[in-house]
């Protein structure tokens, strides 16, 4: 069996259990004597609680307890915000687990019922009597800034959570330069609902005798749950075990910490019996964090011959009623710092206002801040190209940063690691025959058909990230990752990682790394994750960081193993260490490969320790805590081809092709899958998805009958290509790929649709570009003409 599995498209070992229904999710777990919790959630977006009577519910069949804020407030600290954005006047409003006197969004928890069965718990919810006095609500961040609604938090003047500015060069001067071509746009980044297949769930078990609490929880970062959970609940970190079993999708929504999870723990501790809580789908839509929700007022300036000289803007970012765990960093650090994109843009300035609104808290959602940056930039570039009468691909080519291998500084202050942006653009243009497509488009237009081509280039920042930077930007944690590699006497390997794969396939790719580095059969490696009692500390899966940081930790640990194995092999072969050579899992004296010690031989000898060199410890195990020196910066170029029917507004996506560069690919099939999923989620924002709130704060798209997520049968075959530009600082050269597709596909799709409709005079369509909105854009353009 070859050990060269790095780079091979082997099948995901996760899939057999997942596809045959044998995966164990939190809600699949059951403990003896387990009770069930249900949350009473506010039906109003903004109201004071006049009275709250739980007496009838408490007497209902099967009910064990009903708790309100009066019970929980003394025992539980408010939910902390864990991204303390500096220099931004951050104003964190108190976020109680259960509302005390005011509810601030539809979904705010008002009471908790615990009963013998979930049915009894939900029946009892209906018996809780709450009198509300409703207050005016505000759902739009820009309106919130302007004082619509009633103030949301007494401690927050103007509903402003923060104001953050990014600036580099002199944007105002660039815009004022004589002859500058200026294009302007006002963009609504539609609010999205992450919609993981598995809704959130928690199961808590309290062992009173030892003071130990175990929480099974669907999360992207069990160690963060433990860290924050211990602060909120006062259970010491050493006595709090968090287990994340199979996690059915997160997309950022399962980074955040939630009141309901800790309330489930509270109930278990109070009642001294296991308690489970699982969201219903309707509850998930109002109670689990949303994504995006910006109003962007932005402009770009450049020269008549196509050189972009500046980008400037103001963003109003909706944060929801409370600041969720990582929320302040998303529309700022992860958004504003990426405003140069892959281009040589010397002057940028953006003010970002974070606003409280009477809506579900907003958090990271696949791409988290970066799609909102790429989108505004790519949309402005198409406007600019149109204004100066140049092809959009050409304008991109003019402005792309030339190829670099080791560091390029951009105006926002970041240092990109490596890039070959022209390479990606050339490859996608050749693949789709861009010139040919433009010719087809001209022919289609002549026949009255509205064909459009969208082309975008992008770079994104991921692999979060150097811990020192994390500290400097106010992230209340580290961003390193850890791995322990343990060789058993038989040569089989367990890898324990601190991060938490939940669909990305690292059980497979990490085994491939082990196999490639040390020559063991990929099937002899098992990757363990998701249990704080069994795995080393880690910070979780988000920001496309698990392979970019956790994979690096693994590589470093493996190299430690290799060093020890080399020394032990030298000892056993009675040769100096300097004379040793290694190939494919075999250690031998240079020039004498026939007399080798295999890694399995070494594992056995290290574990039995009969004959160790002086001073060498027994065992073959190594760990690494890897803190990356920089972020990684994947990039690429995407193309969408559409036909739009102006009579109905229907969009037909004919073709979607992409080139993405995430460095060397450990498993190209998994990379392709990540690109697919990412692209499709980005298309969701462009075409279908939008959390619509009525002005009174009711979520109108509150079920899957109203909120449309992409489905396979409405999508074309996605053509996935790649280039390979290694990261100079990653031990394996790899970059992240989990979010890339989402970051660029939304604007690629948007630009294609607007390109199709340009002959009709359309220059903008609000997202999601539903048939009615396209149709209205056409009607408006007709009236204007």
């Amino acid at each position, binding site marked *: 069996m070859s050990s060269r599995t790095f780079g091979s498209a082997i099948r995901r070992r996760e899939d057999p259990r997942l596809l045959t229904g044998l995966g164990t999710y939190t809600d699949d777990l059951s403990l003896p004597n387990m009770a069930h919790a249900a949350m009473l959630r506010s039906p109003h977006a903004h109201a004071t609680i006049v009275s709250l009577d739980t007496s009838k519910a408490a007497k209902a069949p099967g009910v064990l307890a009903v708790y309100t804020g009066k019970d929980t407030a003394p025992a539980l600290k408010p939910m902390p915000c864990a991204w303390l954005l500096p220099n931004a006047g951050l104003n964190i409003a108190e976020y109680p687990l259960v509302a005390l006197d005011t509810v601030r969004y539809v979904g705010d928890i008002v009471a908790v019922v615990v009963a013998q069965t979930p049915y009894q718990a*939900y029946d009892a919810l209906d018996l809780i009597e709450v009198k509300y006095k409703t207050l005016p609500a505000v759902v739009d961040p820009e309106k919130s800034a302007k004082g619509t609604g009633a103030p949301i938090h007494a401690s927050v003047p103007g509903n402003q959570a923060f104001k953050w500015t990014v600036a580099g060069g002199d944007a105002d001067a660039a815009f004022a330069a004589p002859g500058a071509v200026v294009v302007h746009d006002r963009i609504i980044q539609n609010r999205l609902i992450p919609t993981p297949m598995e809704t959130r769930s928690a199961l808590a078990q309290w062992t009173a005798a030892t003071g130990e609490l175990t929480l099974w929880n669907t999360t992207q970062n069990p160690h963060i749950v433990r860290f924050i959970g211990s602060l909120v609940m006062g259970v010491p970190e050493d006595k709090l075990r968090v287990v994340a079993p199979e996690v059915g999708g997160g997309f950022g929504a399962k980074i955040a910490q939630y009141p309901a999870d800790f309330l489930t723990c509270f109930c278990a501790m109070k009642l001294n019996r296991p308690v489970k809580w699982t969201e219903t789908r309707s509850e998930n839509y109002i109670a689990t964090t949303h994504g995006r929700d910006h109003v962007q007022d932005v402009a770009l300036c450049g020269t008549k011959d196509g050189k972009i000289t500046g980008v400037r803007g103001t963003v109003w970012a909706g944060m929801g009623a409370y600041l969720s765990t990582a929320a302040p960093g998303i529309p700022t650090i992860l958004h504003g710092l990426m405003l140069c994109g892959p281009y040589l843009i010397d002057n940028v300035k953006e003010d970002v206002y974070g606003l409280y609104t009477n809506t579900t808290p907003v958090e990271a959602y696949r791409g988290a801040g970066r799609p909102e940056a790429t989108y505004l930039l790519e949309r402005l570039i198409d406007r600019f190209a149109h204004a100066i009468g140049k092809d959009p691909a050409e304008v991109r080519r003019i402005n792309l940063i030339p190829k670099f291998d080791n560091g390029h500084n951009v105006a926002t202050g970041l240092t990109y690691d490596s890039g070959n942006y022209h390479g990606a653009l050339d490859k996608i243009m050749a693949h789709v025959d861009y010139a040919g497509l433009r010719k087809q488009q001209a022919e289609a237009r002549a026949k009255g058909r509205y064909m459009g081509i969208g082309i975008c280039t992008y770079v994104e920042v991921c692999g979060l990230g150097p811990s020192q930077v994390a500290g400097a930007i106010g992230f209340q944690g580290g961003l390193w990752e850890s791995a322990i590699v343990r060789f058993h006497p038989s040569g089989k390997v367990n890898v324990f990682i601190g991060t938490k794969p939940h669909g990305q396939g690292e059980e497979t790719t990490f085994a491939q790394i082990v196999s490639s580095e040390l020559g063991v059969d990929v099937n002899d490696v098992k990757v363990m994750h998701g249990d704080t009692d069994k795995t080393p500390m880690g910070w979780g899966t988000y920001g496309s960081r698990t392979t970019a940081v956790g994979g690096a930790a693994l590589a470093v640990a493996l190299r430690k193993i290799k060093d020890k194995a080399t020394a032990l092999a030298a000892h056993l072969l009675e040769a100096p260490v300097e004379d040793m050579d290694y190939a494919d899992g075999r250690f031998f004296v240079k020039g004498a490969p026939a007399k080798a010690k295999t890694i399995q031989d070494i594992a056995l000898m290290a574990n039995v320790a009969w004959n160790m060199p002086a001073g060498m410890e027994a065992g073959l195990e190594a760990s690494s805590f890897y803190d990356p020196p920089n972020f990684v910066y994947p990039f690429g170029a995407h193309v969408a081809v559409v036909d739009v029917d102006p009579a109905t507004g229907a969009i037909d996506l004919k073709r979607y092709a992409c080139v993405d560069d995430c460095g060397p690919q450990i498993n190209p099939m998994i990379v392709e899958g990540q690109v697919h999923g990412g692209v499709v989620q980005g298309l969701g924002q462009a075409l279908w998805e939008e959390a619509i709130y009525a002005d009174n704060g009711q979520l109108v798209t509150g079920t899957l*009958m109203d909120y449309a997520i992409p489905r396979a049968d409405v999508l074309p075959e996605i053509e996935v290509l790649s280039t390979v530009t290694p990261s100079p600082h990653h031990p394996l050269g790899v970059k992240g790929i989990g979010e890339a597709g989402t970051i660029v596909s939304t604007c690629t799709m948007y630009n294609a649709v607007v390109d199709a409709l340009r002959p009709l005079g359309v220059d903008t369509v609000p997202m999601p570009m539903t*048939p*009615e909105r396209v149709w*209205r854009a056409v009607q408006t353009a007709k009236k204007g003409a």
Partner: protein
Amino acid sequence: MYAPSFDYHRASSVAEAQKLLAANPGAKLLAGGHSLLPVLKLRLAAPSALIDLGRIAELKGVSAANGGVRIGAMTTHAEIATSPVLAKSCGIVAEAAAQIGDMAVRNRGTIGGSVAHADPAADLPTVLVAVGATMEIAGAGGATRTVAAADFFQGMMTTALGDGEILTAVWVPALGAGTGAAYAKFAHPASRYAVIGAAASLTVKNGACERAIIIVGGVTATPTALPSVAAALTGSNLSAEAIAAAAGKAAGDLTGDLMGDVFASSEYRRHVTGAYVARAVAAAAARAR
């Protein structure tokens, strides 16, 4: 999503189901459950009991009958979509059934449940009115009656079914030589229900349209005829121009209260219905010739 508690009864015959209905005030009939159960789980309704029709053999199946096709009320959309009998005699019904929801919905949902529920965005009501179907209804005392589809759908989620009545079958006529019918749909991207559903049934003789029936749903609370479109088609040669001109009259026929929501306003639906009518007419014309 947890439904409030209810009693459950399984009937093995229509007569037994009627007895159970009489004995359980506030009970609801349960067919595929695809409309009823979500309503219960959202706690928008709390019937005292459900009477499951799922095991009543006499309510199932598609068969040729009386110069047409009889479809038992408990026949699933999937069976209808793939029925060779329907494909031969009245293909538009199968065509519409094939576009309902997704595979899981078609495997559970039934024609009886769909028409009894009478959702304005459902597909089958529109085509059943277009082809002139007849509903067979078993009354409380064992009496049976029939109601023409056009009279059956009385309002949004309101039908001619009275208390204690059970829909037993839907009979559709064979279209006959020279008649073609087709259904064109604009599906909601989330629910897949019809935002606009357009059914056309055309009879063609010597290249000219002798009779045209145009019914739309989704855009209206109940299946609605478009008389101006039909009139413009009648006597025409069904050329592309003739179809476009006739379909252009659709908005003029849609004058009453129209359906509208955040996804598709009534104004939008009114203006683009013609485009779907044109598609249905063109397909029906091709089949009629």
